[in-house]
């Protein structure tokens, strides 16, 4: 605060010095002004006095001049003149003196002005110096104060620092001491606890040792006892071996039971795991099955769709072609009738044409003849065919009809293509036939009397076929399933036989026959091995199975399969009948007529040419006639006229002859 006060005083005093200079200058200036004013006043007074004195003198001089007129003598005048001159010169001198004084004053003033300027300059310099000095001193003062403040600040901060440090150290020391005390206490406690722990360990060890010893003794005692007991038991066993113990077997059974239980448990576990696996597999398989069934349904739908489309197309094609053909036939017939009526002059009658009346597809005419029937016939016939081929001696004559052969083969092909399994193919036709025969025989009781009587006139084979077909239709078995049926029947039979064979093994019979049967089980089954007992249940089971599995799809499939495999045998005949509307003989007649007509045509062309000729000749003739007419007017031309007439006649004769020839030819 002392310093700041000093600065304040400095701040107050230092400008005062400057102000003093200023006031001093002001004072000087005011002094100068007063002096100047005084000088001015003096000067003015002096000038006024001068003016007054000079005016007085001037008045004197003027007054003298007035007296001059009174002077008469030149001396006086001269004197006066001189006097006047003196006076005026005195006046002039006065004036000059005043001027000089003024000039001197001016000079003095100038000098003083210059001096003042210099002084001012000096003062300015002084002022600046002082200002600079002041600035310096102020700066010094400020610096000192700053240093002082800094010093004080530093001291204060140092003091604060030291006190803080001291406090810090004190506190730290106290803390360390406390920590040390605590540490010591802890160490002591640790030692105490260690001792305690050791004591406890020792105690427990002693106790343990004591107890172990006791146990050992007890153990020894027990061992001894056991040995004694063993010895006793040995002796008792020895006794017991002699006497059958009632307890022994019980023990054994119990042990066994336990074992069995354990096994059972194991098995149960296995069973459950297996079951799980199976259920899983089952689920997967059912899924797959469902998928496959779906796919199957899709494909079937597709097939149906295509079949229907094909049929429609076929029908359309058929109709179109039929129309065309009918038109052609109509034309042919018309031509034929023309030829007969006009050329040959014969009466023509329209040949009988059944096909003309109808249109559209030929429907299967025999509705009763079901596919199964075909299959059966096919089986029988192929068997026959194969038999005829196989048997070199050809003892059995071929019973085939040539026209039916193609149909059966076709059916066979369709069947084989339609998804007959390979296994079924393997199944020999021979076996099939035997099975069929067997069926026919065994199921005879199913037929009605009337039916049998109707069949009586037929051949044996035909009878069998009819029977089977009716049977299968009654069962609802399609021709496809016929082989399967046969297979099932055969299998069933084999099983039965195997069972019988097993029985044979048990009974100790030789296995020769079984081996034979195994070898010939599929191919060479004879009727000997089949009896009624086996056949019926087999058939029953098959039918049941079949009904279950095929109930739904069978009905669906049948509908379009029938269409797909429609009879084409009629078609050929139908078309051929159309083509044979004009027979060979007629064709020959037609050819002959054609050649004749060609000749006739040639003749006609010739005639037409000749007609043109005749026309030209006629024209000539007419002209000539005109000429003749002209000529006739003159008498001289008679001869010429005759000649011309003659020539005309000749021409007409030749024409007539030609016509006659043509007519004869036509006849």
């Amino acid at each position: 605060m002392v310093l700041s006060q000093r600065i304040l005083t400095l701040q107050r005093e230092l400008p005062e010095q400057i102000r003093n200079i200023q006031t001093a200058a002001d004072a000087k200036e005011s002094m100068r002004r007063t002096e100047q004013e005084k000088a001015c006043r003096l000067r003015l007074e002096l000038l006024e006095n001068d003016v007054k004195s000079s005016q007085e003198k001037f008045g004197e001089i003027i007054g003298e001049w007035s007296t001059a007129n009174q002077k008469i003598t030149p001396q006086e005048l001269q004197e006066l003149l001189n006097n006047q001159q003196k006076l005026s010169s005195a006046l002039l001198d006065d004036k000059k003196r005043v001027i000089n004084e003024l000039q001197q004053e001016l000079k003095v003033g100038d000098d003083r002005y210059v001096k003042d300027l210099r002084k001012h300059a000096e003062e300015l310099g002084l002022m600046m110096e002082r200002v600079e000095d002041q600035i310096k001193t102020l700066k010094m003062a400020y610096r000192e104060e700053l240093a002082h403040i800094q010093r004080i600040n530093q001291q204060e901060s140092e003091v604060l620092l030291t006190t803080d440090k001291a406090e810090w150290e004190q506190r730290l020391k106290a803390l360390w001491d406390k920590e040390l005390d605590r540490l010591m206490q802890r160490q002591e406690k640790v030692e105490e606890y260690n001792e305690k722990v050791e004591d406890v360990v020792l105690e427990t060890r002693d106790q343990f040792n004591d107890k172990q010893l006791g146990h050992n003794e007890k153990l020894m005692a027990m061992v001894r006892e056991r040995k004694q007991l063993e010895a006793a038991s040995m002796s008792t066993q020895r006794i017991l071996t002699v006497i059958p113990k009632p307890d022994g077997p019980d023990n054994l059974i119990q042990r066994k039971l336990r074992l069995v239980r354990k096994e059972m448990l194991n098995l149960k576990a296995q069973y459950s795991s297996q079951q799980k696996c199976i259920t899983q597999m089952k689920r997967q398989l059912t899924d797959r099955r469902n998928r496959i069934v779906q796919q199957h349904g899709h494909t079937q739908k597709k097939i149906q769709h295509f079949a229907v489309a094909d049929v429609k197309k076929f029908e359309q094609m058929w109709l179109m072609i039929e129309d065309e053909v009918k038109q052609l036939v109509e034309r042919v017939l018309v031509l034929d009738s023309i030829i007969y009526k006009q050329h040959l002059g014969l009466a023509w009658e329209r040949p009988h044409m059944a096909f003309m009346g109808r249109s559209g597809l030929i429907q299967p005419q025999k509705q009763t003849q079901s596919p199964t029937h075909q299959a059966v016939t096919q089986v029988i016939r192929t068997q026959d065919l194969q038999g005829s081929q196989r048997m070199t001696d050809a003892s059995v004559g071929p019973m085939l009809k040539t026209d039916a052969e193609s149909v059966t083969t076709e059916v066979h092909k369709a069947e084989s293509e339609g998804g007959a399994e390979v296994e079924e193919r393997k199944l020999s036709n021979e076996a099939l036939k035997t099975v069929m025969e067997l069926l026919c025989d065994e199921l005879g009781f199913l037929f009605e009397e009337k039916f049998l009587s109707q069949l009586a006139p037929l051949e044996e084979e035909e009878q069998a076929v009819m029977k089977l077909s009716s049977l299968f239709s009654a069962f609802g078995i399609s021709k496809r399933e016929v082989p399967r049926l046969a297979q099932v029947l055969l299998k069933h039979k084999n099983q039965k036989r195997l069972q019988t064979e097993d029985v044979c093994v048990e009974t100790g019979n030789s296995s020769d026959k079984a081996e034979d049967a195994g070898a010939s089980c599929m191919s060479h089954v004879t009727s000997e091995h089949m009896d009624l007992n086996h056949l019926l249940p087999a058939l029953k089971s098959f039918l049941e199975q079949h009904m279950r599995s095929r109930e739904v799809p069978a009905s669906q499939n049948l509908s379009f399969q029938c269409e797909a495999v429609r009879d084409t045998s009629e078609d050929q005949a139908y078309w051929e009948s159309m083509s044979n509307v004009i027979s060979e003989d007629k064709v020959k007649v037609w050819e002959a007529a054609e050649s004749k007509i060609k000749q006739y045509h040639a003749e006609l062309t010739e005639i037409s040419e000749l007609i043109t000729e005749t026309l030209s000749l006629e024209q000539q003739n007419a002209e000539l006639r005109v000429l003749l007419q002209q000529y006739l007017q003159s008498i001289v031309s008679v001869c010429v006229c005759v000649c011309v007439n003659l020539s005309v006649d000749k021409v007409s004769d030749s024409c007539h002859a030609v016509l006659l020839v043509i007519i004869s030819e036509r006849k």
Partner: protein
Amino acid sequence: MSRSPYLQGATINPAEDFRRMRRIVAEDLDWTLVIVPCLSKLCLQSFIRNFEEKPIFEELSPTQRDFVQEGLSTSLPLNLTANLISDGVFWKRCCEERWDLCDVSHYGHSWKRMFFERHMENIIELFIPYSTEEKTVLEMVPLCKNYVKRLNISQLLPPIREPEGEEEDELGLDSPYQNENEGQSMDHFNFKILLSKLTNLEELHLVYKVNQCGMNFEWQMFEMTDKDCKSLASALKSCKTLKILRLHESHIEDKKCLLLVKHLLDHPSLRELDFSHNLIGDKGARAVAKLLNKSQLETLNLYDNDIRDHGAKALAHALAKNPTLQSLNLRLNRVGDEGGQAIANALLNNKTLSHLHLGANKVTEPTVITLAKVIAQNNTLKSINISCNCLGEDGGKALEEAMSYNTSITECDVCLTGMGEQSVSFINQAVWTNKKNAI
């Protein structure tokens, strides 16, 4: 990876993504992004280069404007930059290029204002009547009228005389020849054309003199002619925003003072009038006194004039009724006791004047005794200066006594007044305590 083109087209093109993932990695390790100038910087640089053809400034953001101001050439024509570029670095650069000393605090911390004020001053100071065209000044007016608040003109050149005259001057021939040529008019720059157009002008400092005239010195160079006075008076009247008028060392006599004051009567904004270092006498003082009550003057400075008792009486009469004047300076005048007493008596009624300067006058004891009465009861007066007057011991004692009652005066100069040492020191002590209390 051999996808069909269809798939590639349909899904998102992986190749495109891959390309987007690429980055340029500089192989040159010294390469840094700092060296590469931003595109925006480059754009701004091109703006700067083509500023003359296509000036773009107002659309830019503040930081961009700063950048442009840094880069613009200071030689650009003023009519382009004056109203476009705001106050900032550009004007600082312009100022520093032209003048060595640049104290922006005197110009309200505005470099633009500083530039235009000094530019205008330079133009006026170098204006030579009848040879410089008025157009040069008038051209600047629309550019700088928004920024010029103060004109501090330190010289006004007289018209150039006929070549023969100048030659004679140079030859330094005797004075009678010179005087013959002085019949020619010596009018200076006519402010009439300028002041009415500077709509923001608040201060005008004028000196009718020539700096560095050297050996061509003539009294007429330091005078204001009648015509000058007329034109200036009407110009001042037209300048409605003027607050401060200073007219120093211009040889203003009573007649010119009368003329000026007549035009300043009822000026709407004038606050400070300064006619120091002139030749104003009692008549002029009377005119100024009339002005005091017909305006809102707060400061009146008549330092270094020739005012005597009559003028002082007139001023005192005005002061007694004036409610606005705060500072009156009559230093270095010829006021006697009569005038001094009149002023002191006026202060008995005045409650607004705070600064009074009566230094270097012809005031004596009676005035001081009246002043002592004032000091004893007036609390508005803060500073009083009666130095360089013959006050005498008695006056000192009276003042001493008065000061003991006063608490408001913080400055009191009584040097060179012939007072006793004791009273001077007492007065200083009293002032000192007052000052301390004031702080």
